[in-house]
């Protein structure tokens, strides 16, 4: 067995693959954040709570309506996106012309309220959600045993990320969106309903968070604090990638997942902090982020 830096190569490849799986969650979540910030200029701190709501929606759909995982993949993002529409209409609409800080404070407060309500109702130990039967079991890849479900997570999030990037960067709808954020008045003059587009964009970003939540439900505990732990790391990912860059968020998400995976092999105690160390270095060298455009 070849050893790389004292670790058997088999173990290393296994960890890289696991890092890729974690990276897909980071990528999905940071994509939602990047969409919302890049197009709406809102720092959406509620993202973690919306991720958690997606997981809970999947739990309710299964336990009260008997709808399995595949239904939840479609319905949960729609349900949570609807709450996103409500938030945008009631609160965020009034903040677009103000400093970013107000959006951050508002969404942060909303996140605390939502998490507190859920924790009050459901406790913090978490609720069980089973892996769908068709994705149970795994493949023995030789260097590790890959659960089918985790393989599905990587493939599906990659597909969603690429589809989102394509819609925003390469289609007419995406072009309208990008134009509307740069110059809303002019775009409105062309007869395009800008406020509705903005609401739907926010809902889409929220839906992405909820989708990540549904995918996380079978493997991580469905508990009210699942978003709080993740959101800080995701923000670091978005900052490293560049706050407004869609492609940056996707690429950085996957890459940092792999970096974290490697850290877990060589220096496990630091695996929680390595992303923040990288964030500090990137901010010192390239303040706009790796893929970002300098404001």
């Amino acid at each position, binding site marked *: 067995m070849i050893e790389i830096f004292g670790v058997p190569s088999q173990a290393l490849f*296994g960890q890289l693959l696991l890092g890729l799986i974690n990276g897909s969650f980071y990528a999905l979540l940071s994509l939602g954040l990047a969409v919302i910030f890049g197009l709406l200029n809102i720092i959406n701190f509620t993202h973690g709570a919306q991720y958690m709501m997606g997981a809970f929606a999947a739990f309710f759909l299964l336990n009260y309506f008997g709808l399995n995982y595949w239904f939840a993949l479609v319905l949960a993002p729609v349900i949570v996106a609807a709450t996103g529409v409500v938030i945008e209409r009631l609160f965020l609409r009034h903040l677009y012309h103000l400093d970013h800080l107000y959006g951050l404070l508002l969404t942060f407060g909303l996140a605390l309220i939502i998490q507190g309500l859920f924790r009050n109702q459901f*406790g*913090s130990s978490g609720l069980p959600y089973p892996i769908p039967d068709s994705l149970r079991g795994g493949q023995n890849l030789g260097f590790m045993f890959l659960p089918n479900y985790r393989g599905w997570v990587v493939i599906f999030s990659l597909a969603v990320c690429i589809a989102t990037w394509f819609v925003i960067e390469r289609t007419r709808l995406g072009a309208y969106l990008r134009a509307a954020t740069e110059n809303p008045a002019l775009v409105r003059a062309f007869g395009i309903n800008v406020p509705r587009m903005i609401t739907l964009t926010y809902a889409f970003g929220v839906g992405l968070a909820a989708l990540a939540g549904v995918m996380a439900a079978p493997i991580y505990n469905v508990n009210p604090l699942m978003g709080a732990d993740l959101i800080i790391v995701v923000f670091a990912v978005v900052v490293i990638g560049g706050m407004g860059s869609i492609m940056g968020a996707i690429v950085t998400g996957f890459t940092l997942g792999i970096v974290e995976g490697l850290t877990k092999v060589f220096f496990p105690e630091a695996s929680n902090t390595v992303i923040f160390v990288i964030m500090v270095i990137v901010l010192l060298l390239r303040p706009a982020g790796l893929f970002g455009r300098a404001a």
Partner: protein
Amino acid sequence: MKRFIGFTALAVALSCATAQAQWSDGVIKIGVMNDMSGTYADLSGPGSVLAARMAVEDFGAEKKGMKVEIVGADHQNKPDIGSNVVRTWIDVDKVDVIVDVPTSSVALAVNQIVKDKNKVFLVSGAAASDLTGKACTPNTIHWTYDTWALANGTGNAIVKTGGDSWFFLTADYAFGHALERDTAAVVEKNGGKVVGKVRHPFPGTDFSSFLLQAQTSKAKIIGLANAGSDTINSIKQASEFGIVQGGQNLAALLAFITDVHALGLKTAQGLIMTEAWYWDLNDANREFAKKFSAQNKGVYPSMVHAGVYSAVTHYLKALEALKSDADGAAVVKKMKEIPTEDKLFGKGEVRADGRKIHPMYLFEVKKPEESKGAWDYYKVRATIPADQAFRPLKDGGCPLVSN
């Protein structure tokens, strides 16, 4: 007017005559501090405050002329927050006793503060056996369980049935280190081997890469030296990665009934763990559990909750005998003199090093078809008698124990 004043003065004098005990500030203040919202909230949390209240009511404190107040606080598993809360409680709010405090790093910090300020510290939630070892003080009693008792129960049982090579997955803080150390000692004493260990950040969410390292090590037993949602996630993810199918077994070195409830019997069946108390062992426990769960959103009491009840009961008993709560060390000395007896733990005692002694139980989680309903999760595999359950007095290295 004169007669009225005279009458009032007489009434006041008579009422004063009944107050024989002098409580500091006239009230006995109990501070229950634990994790109210995070990893350990379900096994302690608001349930411990409820348990303390039930203990005060069952003791009949009001009828005995003891005015008791209970306050609760969240230490968020952080030693600095816990220390600040305790300091404010003692200095400003005149709290007389600190109860519960899971998360050993917080407990060790509070342990020192309570000693410096000469109050009382009754630990139910925390596990590190150092609290009655190197870090023992005349003001602290370690009530419910500790890492040595867990290692002795679970570790012993598993090594004796053939689990002789171990890989540890440890929470990277005081509790995890203590549990890993105590269990490794038991494994090696029984002829087993520790083939590897990895420390994960506390609290963790994703254990897949650590479990992968455990798989590669080919150890027969993967010892989970963590607790709360860390243990729950480790077990869930281990089943996902086919660890048990691959021939390795998991040892949940610290698990509570609330963890089994969160995992579900399908995933948790067959797990072996050591606990100090279970609601379905006798009628008194069952009655307590029913009353408790009715006020706790249907969640049944864990051994930590039972420990809080028992500790507060004994504390009030000692206060009743001593008739004063000002000197913490004196109260603890009284608690060590009087043998303990309450409806949950039965008869027991508190040792010179501050260790509360009672039997421990080795439980196995039932299969789904063996369970008659929610919270009916355990079957008793063995009872470890009180004199064997905890570390011998001379082995702890506690300065209070005269050799």
